[in-house]
């Protein structure tokens, strides 16, 4: 695995809002087939980092390179065309279409057919859409209206959409937020399997530490905009600074919360 090429390299990323540093001097790398978790308490800069990577925010300074190509400041749709799939914290799909049509739209876009006014979409890439849906275990739901799906299934559909452009990198913003515990495990196992099989690099943010420690190959810890630790799950778990700042704070909040509740 260590021989896999560097997929994503982030160099010295900085972004501030009115004097507050959301992200300061963040650098890291991600290799093909690797699953990397980005964690940190609320306000640590995870979302800012993430939105810079997928092109929604332009950083003040620093660079993002995908397979050696600079993607800094490029629009999300351009970054997608360079081979980055993504899922959102609150799943974003097309609710008025069927499950299959959702995937077909992404395939139409990938095939450069967006301005085709004449062909029939129903026949476009039908099998390929079915294959992607089978991959995420949604094959049986292909003709169902997307608006009728349970949330866990919407998340799986979103993963199928994100895979439509055969991405090299998958960005997942809190992939298991809002899901039941069993669904979380299933979704992450599925993601990990696909990533390994297709050698896709995965970067995800997550609040659920069980998910993080079970599935990540490597973990980055952000606090107040700076990277304070980086390493394997074991290394991060044992890091005193992480315990103090991240896990420790959580306990303090927890205790306060309970006091407040009983008062």
């Amino acid at each position, binding site marked *: 695995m260590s021989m896999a090429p560097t997929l994503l390299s982030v160099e010295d990323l900085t972004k501030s809002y009115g004097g507050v540093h959301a992200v300061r001097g963040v650098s890291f790398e991600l290799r093909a087939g690797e699953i990397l978790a980005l964690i940190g308490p609320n306000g640590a800069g995870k979302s800012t980092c993430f939105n810079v990577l997928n092109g929604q925010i332009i950083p003040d300074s620093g660079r993002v390179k995908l397979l050696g190509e600079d993607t800094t400041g490029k629009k999300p*749709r351009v970054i997608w065309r360079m081979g980055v799939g993504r899922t959102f914290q609150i799943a974003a799909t097309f609710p*008025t*279409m069927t499950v299959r049509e959702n995937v077909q739209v992404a395939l139409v876009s990938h095939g450069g057919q967006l*301005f085709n006014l*004449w062909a029939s979409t*129903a026949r476009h890439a039908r099998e390929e859409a079915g294959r992607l849906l089978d991959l995420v275990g949604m094959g049986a739901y292909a003709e169902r209206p997307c608006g009728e799906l349970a949330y866990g299934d919407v998340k799986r559909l979103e993963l199928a959409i994100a895979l439509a452009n055969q991405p090299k990198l998958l960005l997942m913003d809190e992939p298991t937020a809002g899901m039941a515990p069993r669904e979380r495990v299933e979704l992450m196992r599925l993601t990990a399997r696909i990533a390994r099989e297709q050698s896709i690099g995965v970067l995800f943010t997550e609040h659920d530490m069980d998910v993080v420690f079970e599935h990540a190959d490597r973990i980055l810890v952000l606090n107040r905009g700076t990277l304070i630790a980086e390493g394997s799950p074991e290394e991060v778990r044992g890091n005193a600074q992480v315990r103090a700042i991240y896990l420790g704070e959580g306990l303090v909040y927890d205790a306060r919360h309970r006091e407040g509740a009983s008062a």
Partner: protein
Amino acid sequence: MAFYVVQFLTGLASAASLFLVASGLSIIFGVTRIVNFAHGAFYMLGAYVAFTLTERFSGAFGFWGGIVVAALAVAAIGVLVEMVLLRRIYHSPELFQLLATFGLTLMVEDLVVLIWGPDDLVGRRAPGFKGAIDFFGQNIPSYDLFLIVLGPVVLGVLWLLFQRTRWGVLVRAATQDRDMVAALGVNQKWLFTSVFALGVFLAALGGALQIPRDAVNHAMDLRVIVEVFVVVVIGGLGSIIGAFVAAVLVSELNAFGILIFPKISIILVFLVMAVVLIVRPWGLFGKPEAPVRRTPGLTVNPWRPLTANERLAAIAVLVVAAALPFVAGNYVLTVGSEIAIFVIFAVSLHFLMSVGGLASFGHAAYFGLGAYGVALLAKMAGLPMIACLLLGPLLGLLGAAVFGFFAVQLSGVYFAMLTLAFAQIVWSIAFQWVSVTGGDNGILGVWPEKWAASPSHFYWLSLGIAALAVVILRIIVFSPFGFALRATRDSPLRSEAVGINGKRIQWTAFVIAGTVAGLAGALFAYLKGSVFPDNMGISLSVDALVMVLLGGVETVSGAVVGAIVYKALNIWLVSQTDWSKLVLGAFVVLIVVAFPKGIVGTLEAFLHRRRKSSSSASPVLTSRIETAE
């Protein structure tokens, strides 16, 4: 120099009334999120009621008392409207709210004619402000000076009301987050009602204060509502200070525009609005809107192309329609042609609205451009009819390409207002550029050539083109482009994340819709033999919206049925009653409240439910039958 100062002061005086009406609209929007199209109607009612009261009661007390009582009385009517109508549609999509309040406007227009008659009414001068003041040889009416002072005073009173009273704090809180205010236990119903009452009071006061300056007439509502839209869009929806600044800006542009560019004075204001919207889409003092909430009750019934049987049925209907000339007379055929033309117009807007999610309030612009395109080509270039029919709509295409580029940068209410403004620009050009367009007199004598001249031939031509337009648009709906357009409507976030350039897709859709509308306009010019500025007027744009809504905005081709029913009803009503606007307005309100899915949408939902229940109930049914045997 003195002349310019006087001109400036006249502008300021006009700004006062405009500010009152605009601030009312803005306050209502801020809290209820309803863009009250009927605001102009309340303004007009204020003027009419004040006219009656000030005529009845003389003297200073009678006059000023009459003005205030008129505003209060209209505010009471506003409360009634809010409780009976608006409370039912607060959770409807914004388009439905605009249409319901537009229906109300239509009704009020006929009602004032019914009560006060069709003639202009000239009101009394204000006691104490009858004279004029001499300013370096120029006269300034003292009433203007009163209005100039009144504007800032009202602004100050409103500011105190919102900053210093408990009610004002609640209104400001609700403007920021009305759900949170409701969650904190505030009675939202009465908050909304009181806000609406205040807004209507301000509109009616603005109207009542106009009677010493201007004659009262039954067309003043549309004129003022367009100006007020411009003011709140420039100032920012929901901002009172924005309404004040923009009212002054617009009034001064009007006052000086007429001196500097007498030909394009109307356009000037709209150009400023377009520029503001493009630079600051949420207005000078407004805040960016949160993304539009998803419409509840949106169809979960994905669209399908017609099945083989449905296709046969559609062809059968077309064949029956094509047989009409064998049984019907010339009048019916002419009506039939007009309906076919409006089917084309309606499906073009329907494509933009239901597939693209873009509710244009100025779609008539492209219809009118197509009509003028044909008229100019036929009269000036003398081209044959076929060439005119092919080239005329290109003017619609051109207009849609230019305006659409700017319009698709916005969405929701702002998109609606910008398209309305663009349509008004086009209308103004047709109205004012007399040397080319003939102005108000239009262009006459645009008759079809011999092969298409007879009513039956023209009917077949219109029917054929209508069928073609419907088929082509349906093909586009189910094409990859159609899916990309729906994807952009469904989720801008997701579509961008799968590489779709939403703005370019929407722009293309706008151009397609504009071209098809231009085709309808081209045929219309030949049907009527003439074109007029009204072929691109607001009422035509609203006709199109109603046809789409009546058919069902969530359907693929509901506008076909909507256009047939609406147009037939409209033509029939005009022949049957003098109060067609009253009936039509009531009809629009009824659809919005009772059948928001439209005719086709309601039918589809009904069939869908029946199919579902029959497929699930049938095994039970058969087993029961078996046991019964």
